[in-house]
C-alpha cells in the first residue's frame, strides 16, 4: 500500500489533494456531493475583515475548457466566519485552511490576527491578487513592494503556517516567489486565476458585470504547471499547485514538477467526484510506478536530454 500522506509546515495531510479556495464555500455547501474527508483538506472561501457584497452580476462566463469568474470575493466577513462558519465544521475530519483577503495591508493583518486565535484553521493562505485600494487598485501580488508589505504584516500577525497564493500575471514569477518567502511565507500556492475577459457580441457588452474576470479550469493547466516548475527552482519552501487540475494525471504532473499539494477548483463544477477520483488514481499511479510514498513524487521530474 502506498503511503499517500504528505506533511508540510508540520501539518499532516492524508493525501495531497485539496479543494481550492472559492470553490468549496465555507466547507458545508457540497455536503452529499463531494466528501472532503476523503481529501487532504479544504481551503475555505476568502474572508475579509468586514463582509463583502461582491461584484454586480453576471459573475460567471464559460470559455473553451475554462471559465471566468468575477465573484468579487463576496464573503460573510470575519465575525460571521468565526461565529458561524468555522464552528459548523467542527465534526469535519479534514485539514481546514483559511484564505485571507483584504483591500489594505491592515485589513489582511487584522484577519490573520483574528484567525490566529482560532484553533481550527491549520494554515492561513493569503490571496495577494486582491486590488490594493490604497494604490490605484493594482493587485498586491503584482508589485514587489506591496507584496513584501502584505506578507510581512500577515507574518507578524500569526504564528500559524502562512501560505502566500501568488498571482500568475507577472513577467517572471521567481522574484515574487523569493520576495514572499523572504517576507515570511512558509509555503507558496501557485497560482491564482489569470486575468481575462469575455464579450457578448450580440449585446456588444462585456459578459461580466466587472468587465474582467479570472480564468481557471483545464485551459490554464499548462500555464500553472510551468509556474510551479519555475517557482520550485526559485525557492525552498513547499509549493501548493493550483490551476486547471482535473484528475490524477494532472496531480502527478504538478507533483513531479515540484508541488507538495495540489488544489482542485473548477473541476468540482463539472465533476464533484473528481478530487476523490484523483486520490484513487494517484495511489494507483504511485503503486504501479513503484513509489511507496507519494511524497517522493515531489520534484521527481526527469529533465530532458
Amino acid at each position, binding site marked *: 500500500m502506498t503511503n499517500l500522506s504528505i506533511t508540510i509546515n508540520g501539518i499532516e495531510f492524508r493525501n495531497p489533494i485539496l479543494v481550492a479556495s472559492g470553490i468549496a464555500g465555507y466547507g458545508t455547501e457540497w455536503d*452529499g456531493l463531494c466528501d472532503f474527508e476523503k481529501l487532504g483538506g479544504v481551503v475555505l472561501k476568502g474572508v475579509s475583515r468586514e463582509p463583502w457584497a461582491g461584484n454586480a452580476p453576471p459573475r460567471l462566463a464559460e470559455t473553451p475548457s475554462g471559465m471566468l469568474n468575477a465573484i468579487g470575493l463576496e464573503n460573510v466577513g470575519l465575525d460571521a466566519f468565526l461565529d458561524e462558519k468555522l464552528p459548523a465544521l467542527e465534526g469535519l475530519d479534514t485539514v481546514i485552511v483559511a484564505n485571507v483577503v483584504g483591500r489594505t495591508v491592515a485589513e489582511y493583518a487584522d484577519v490573520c490576527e483574528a484567525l490566529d486565535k482560532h484553533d481550527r484553521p491549520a494554515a492561513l493562505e493569503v490571496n495577494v491578487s486582491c486590488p490594493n485600494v490604497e494604490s490605484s487598485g493594482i493587485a498586491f501580488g503584482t508589485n514587489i513592494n506591496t507584496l513584501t508589505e502584505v506578507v510581512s504584516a500577515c507574518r507578524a500577525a500569526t504564528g500559524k503556517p502562512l501560505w502566500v497564493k501568488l498571482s500568475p500575471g507577472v513577467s517572471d514569477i521567481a522574484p515574487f516567489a523569493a520576495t514572499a518567502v523572504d517576507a515570511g511565507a512558509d509555503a507558496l500556492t501557485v497560482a491564482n486565476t489569470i486575468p481575462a475577459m469575455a464579450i457578448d457580441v450580440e449585446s456588444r457588452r462585456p459578459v461580466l458585470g466587472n468587465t474582467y474576470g479570472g480564468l481557471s479550469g483545464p485551459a490554464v493547466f499548462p500555464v500553472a504547471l510551468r509556474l510551479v516548475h519555475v517557482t520550485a527552482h526559485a525557492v525552498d519552501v513547499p509549493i501548493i499547485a493550483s490551476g486547471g487540475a482535473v484528475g490524477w494525471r494532472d496531480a502527478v504532473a504538478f507533483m513531479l514538477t515540484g508541488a507538495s499539494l495540489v488544489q482542485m477548483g473548477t473541476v468540482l463544477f463539472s465533476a464533484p467526484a473528481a478530487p476523490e477520483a484523483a486520490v484513487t488514481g494517484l495511489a494507483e499511479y504511485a503503486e504501479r510506478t513503484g513509489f511507496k510514498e507519494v511524497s517522493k513524487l515531489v520534484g521527481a521530474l526527469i529533465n530532458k536530454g
Partner: protein
Amino acid sequence: MDPRKKNRGLYECEITEKRRLGPGVFEMTLAPFTADVRAFQFAMVGIPGRGDLLLKRPLCLFDTTPGKEGEIKILVKAAGEGTKALKATPVGTRVEVAGPFGEPRDIPGEHIAVVAGGIGVAGSYLFAKQNAQRISAVYFGSTTRWDDEIYKLLEELGTPARIATDDGTLGRHGPITELLTEADCDAVVACGPPAMLERVYKITAGAGIRAYGSFEARMACGVGACRGCAIPAKPEKASGKEYLMVCEDGPVFAMDVIDWERYRAAGI
C-alpha cells in the same frame, strides 16, 4: 447534515427517452434519479463528451418519478452551445446530473395563477401538478405554437389552461401577460424570460397580488458555494443583502425582493 442536503446527490444517468415538444424544445428522460423533487427545484446537467464545455447547465425538473426506480424528465430548449449539444446527444448516452437543488419554497395562496413563458413551462408544470387544487389557471405563452403534446400535458393537469402565442398561431394573439390582467387569483407564480417576469411584477404590484418568480442566473456549483449566481436584491427586503443566490435562496423569489433596476442593468 441539513435534511435537504441528504436528499440530493450525484447521479450517472442514462438518457432513456427523448421527444420533441416544441420548436427547439425537447423532453429528455433521465434515470436513475431517486431523490424527491419539489416544484421549481432544478438539476445541474453535464454536457456529455464535451471537454470544452465545463459547466453543468441548470435545468428545471419538469417531471419526476421518485424512489428506487426513479427517473426525471427535463425540458430543454436548444439555446446555446451546451443545450444544442444536449439535443444532439443520442438516447443511451450517460450524463452526469447533480441535484435536486434550489430552495423548495412554499407559495401561500388558494387561487394561484401559474404563468409560464416559453421554456418557463419546464418549471411551472411540476408546480401545477403538485399543487393542482390551489391553481386557478395555468397561463402558457410562447412565441409560436408548440407541438400538441405539450398542450395535452397541460390539459391533463385538470386545471384551466390559458394559451397565447406572440404570432397568433394558437390561443390569444399576443403576450401571455395580457391574459393575466383578467386573472382571478390571490397569488401568481411566474417562470419565463426576464421581461415577462418584470411585466408580471408590474401587473401584480398594481393589483396588490403577491407575486413570485423563478429567476435564472449563470451557475457554476448550484449549491451556494461559488457565489456566482447572484441576483440583485433590495437589501431592506433581503435581510440586508445586496445579492441573493439563485441556486441557494431561489430560484423562486417574491418579486418585491428583487432590485429590478440593477437586475435589468446586469442583462443576465
